């Protein structure tokens, strides 16, 4: 596969390491009263879509950027690529 890095342009997927569902960005607050339940869902419940999937890729053999890649699991077509840091901020994460 070829992943078009937002900063570096098209790069071979072999330069990247795959982590998984980009919902990992939405880490719950560990100090919340129902943290155990939230963490259970966060860590163990995953969608397994036969279509578009937002996932985290790490440019380990490159600039060390974490990316959110939207990939069609049926065709491997990639429709969207963003820096994970930007996505995290858009989703309300900060410090």
């Amino acid at each position, binding site marked *: *596969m*070829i992943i078009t890095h937002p900063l570096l342009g098209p790069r071979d*997927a072999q330069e990247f*390491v795959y*982590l998984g569902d980009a919902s*990992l*960005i939405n*880490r*719950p*607050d*560990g*100090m919340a009263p129902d*943290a*155990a339940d939230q*963490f*259970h869902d*966060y*860590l163990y419940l995953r969608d397994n879509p036969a279509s578009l999937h937002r996932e*985290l890729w*790490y440019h*380990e053999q490159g600039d*060390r*950027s*974490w990316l959110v890649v939207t990939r069609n699991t049926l*065709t*491997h*077509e*990639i429709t969207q690529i963003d*820096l*994970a*840091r*930007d996505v*995290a*901020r858009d989703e309300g*994460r*900060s*410090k």
Partner: protein
Amino acid sequence: MTQSNRIDGGQIDRTRTLTFTFDGKSYAGHPGDTLASALLANNVRLMGRSFKYHRPRGVIAAGSEEPNALVELRTGARTEPNTRATTAELFDGLSANSQNRWPSLRFDAMAINDRLWPFFAAGFYYKTFMWPKSFWEKIYEPIIRRAAGLGSLSVQDDPDAYDKGFLHCDVLIIGAGPAGLAAAITAARSGARVILADEDFRMGGRLNAETFVLGNQSGPDWAAQTVAELATMPNVRLLPRTTILGALDHGIYSAVERVSDHLAQPQPGKPRQILWRIYSKRAILTAGAIERPIAFENNDRPGIMLAGAIRAYANRWAVIPGQRVAIFTNNDDGLRTATDLVAKGVDVVAVIDPREGLPFLPGIRHLQGAKVIDTAGRLGLSSVTVRTPKGVETLQVTALGVSGGWNPNLAISSHHRGRPVWNDAIAAFTPGADGPVNLTFAGAANGQFPTHAALNSGATAAADAVIALGFTAPAPDLPKAEDAPTAITPFWYVQHGKGRAWIDPQNDVTVKDIKLSHQEGFRSVEHLKRYTTLGMATDQGKTSNVLGIAVMAELTGQSIPQTGTTIYRPPYTPVAIAAFAGRSTGADFRPTRLTPSHKWAAEQGAVFVEVGMWLRTQWLPRTGEVTWRQSVDREVLQTRKSVGICDVTTLGKIDIQGTDAGAFLDRVYANTFSTLAVGKVRYGLMLREDGMVFDDGTTARMGQNEYVTTTTTANAVTVFRHLEYCRQCLWPDMDVQLISTTEAWAQYSVAGPNARKLLEKIVDQDIANDAFPYMACAEITVCGGLRARLFRISFSGELAYEIAVPTRYGDAMIRELVAAGTEFDAVVYGTEALGVMRVEKGHVAGNELNGQSTALNMGLGKMVSRKKDAIGMVLSNRDGMINDDGYRLVGVRPVDPAQPLTAGSHFIAKGADPVAANDGGWLTSVVYSPHLGHAIALGYLKKGAARMGERLRAVNLLAGTEVEIEITSPHFIDPEGARLRA
């Protein structure tokens, strides 16, 4: 050395004669020959034995689709089994041997299987070798494997080099027949970067096998001229002898180029083969078509071939497979073989055509409404029996060409699960619309069989491709070519008699097997394939799949499209594993990293061990030491007695800086670092989000906003990745920066009672116990001004320091340390002594940090702060993880000090059976402690913390050992830590 079947013409170089051997006998051929064409020229029809029945077999095809003529090429370490004689390019001195026969190809003892054939029908193995179960692996499988099979390996290292490479292009064209050449020249003239790949050594495809005229040139001449023009263009790369193996994602194609397979051995500096990854923006599949046979009784005898293959041998290689030839065809293309042969003066005895009412071929005995119902000839065809409307007749022939029509070669179109579509007009499947993105099809691969259509569709596909990429396509400049319609009446198999009619000759699948499969309910194409093994041989059913499906369709009374088709998977043809390995073999399988002290250690005769990718000193033998234990015991004892030096550079080092660095560490470690004083070091435990321990190490606070974290050697990469993930994905606004400095610093541990005295000779600053106490850290200088870092930390349990200098001074530093240590009789110790001392001290390492253990298991539960949110904090407090009956880290010693212990042994109560239900835990790390004079171990024991002094058994059923042991504290030496603080 006569070539009795060689006729005039052909694209071979008769000015040179090549000598080769087959099964030890010497023959002659010419440059341009394949092994198959040269054998046929010498009237050798018998080339192998079949997989299951050991039937005598000859070549049936002229290309890579060949199912029968699999031979072993070359000798010694270069022996290459299961190679198709049809693709093996002849070279002088080639040595080839037949396979799957004993004692000889002409007399094969295993041919008894053929007499026993009623027992060997589809499903025979599934039904027969079922009981008793204990016979599966040791008795049935070895026997079956010996009886059925193909070539064998040399079991020697391949002496040749294999490479990998990367190519980029605008348009990749797969196959250099008429469509591919028209596509290539059209795309190339537009200025686009073009790669044209063909598995053959001579480009031109069927043009080289036919007598077609293109414009005013012969087909081969037009092909050669077009290839010559392409070769002059700088934007074109021609890849002959290159098979496109598969369509990967996003326009990437995998290919293997057989750079030196046509030579006795590669030229100096050249690889045998290259595995290419080709990055294309557009690709065009112009891979032609593959002829399929018709099934009839005993249709597998040497001499019975595909009609198009006979024509190819006659036209391209000037070879006829026999002196008297008949043709059995259901389509007009098969008739071409008859007319071409007659034109060459070959005796064509008859054309057997199941169709009726056709115009009769002039000058040839054209039997219409006729079928071949049987054949004769044990080691080669001698006659065929034909049923015509007038009766049954036997024809004395030595070769029979069979054509059941042509299947577009669409394998690559289905590599992304694209489904082929049935086309009634040509009675074959054509590529579906759901193939790989940006791959289009032209020529016979797309069902456009006439040469005129192939040329035009190739040019059109190329023009479409380059225009889509922004180039301007020139007007096509194509020669006039034959445009005969495809005339075919589907006809699949002859229903007659009780004998066997082969469909898949390589896997010995017959019409009867298909019928049996149908009868037993395995009717879907996928079941049919797996039950009968149809199409599952090394040829992937290139000649047989469609025929098999057609027979099943007739049996079920469904149409072929209703019956379905199987799709193809990569690789298109078999690939040597060496090509996938490339240069990554032996010591080059993966790179090794050398520590800064490597050169010095090698000079001392150190024994090295691979840790991660590093080569670390395992121990340093001294003169007179015979066993490794002598060296390791000495290193341990001398370190504890005086001082030892160890290279610990391989530990991961990460500089963490920024105003939020402390807060960041609090989030990623279970314990707290923001409260750590500047100039101090603290041990840290890093958890995974699920609460298991991920890694451990020390973190030093070098300044208000500057920390240096160490990781274990094994996890250096994954911890850094994890920290980047936390920083970018979880807390994107934290002011924290990370950089790996593992390679930047050479780091040595100096441990033992004399460690300070030794370092005082090197360090420029005061490091007395008050000035630089236990767990202190500082930026210092050494040797009169060289910047360095000093940490007072200990893994061994002794008074110890780790000193880091810039890597380029690492070699100088080990020499300096050793020189400074001479007066203390200092030793340099390796990873074994390091391991002994950490077990003696009760420190956990990789064996305990196995991804299944919690902080509580390790006796470090109190380190997990619940006052802050950190990775893994919440889930480490789950019920199942904090119960009291879980595993706890314990020490273990044998009751009898003379007894050794075995790592991996399980704790079993005295008197209890050594079964899983009585399992109490296991020994994680075992060493011999020279300090204590007996073996010691660490282990995880259920409720271990409360069981000190208890006696159990350590049982290892694999090693066959059982030792009575006593549970102790994991801290075997200096449990109070007085030495550390000395």
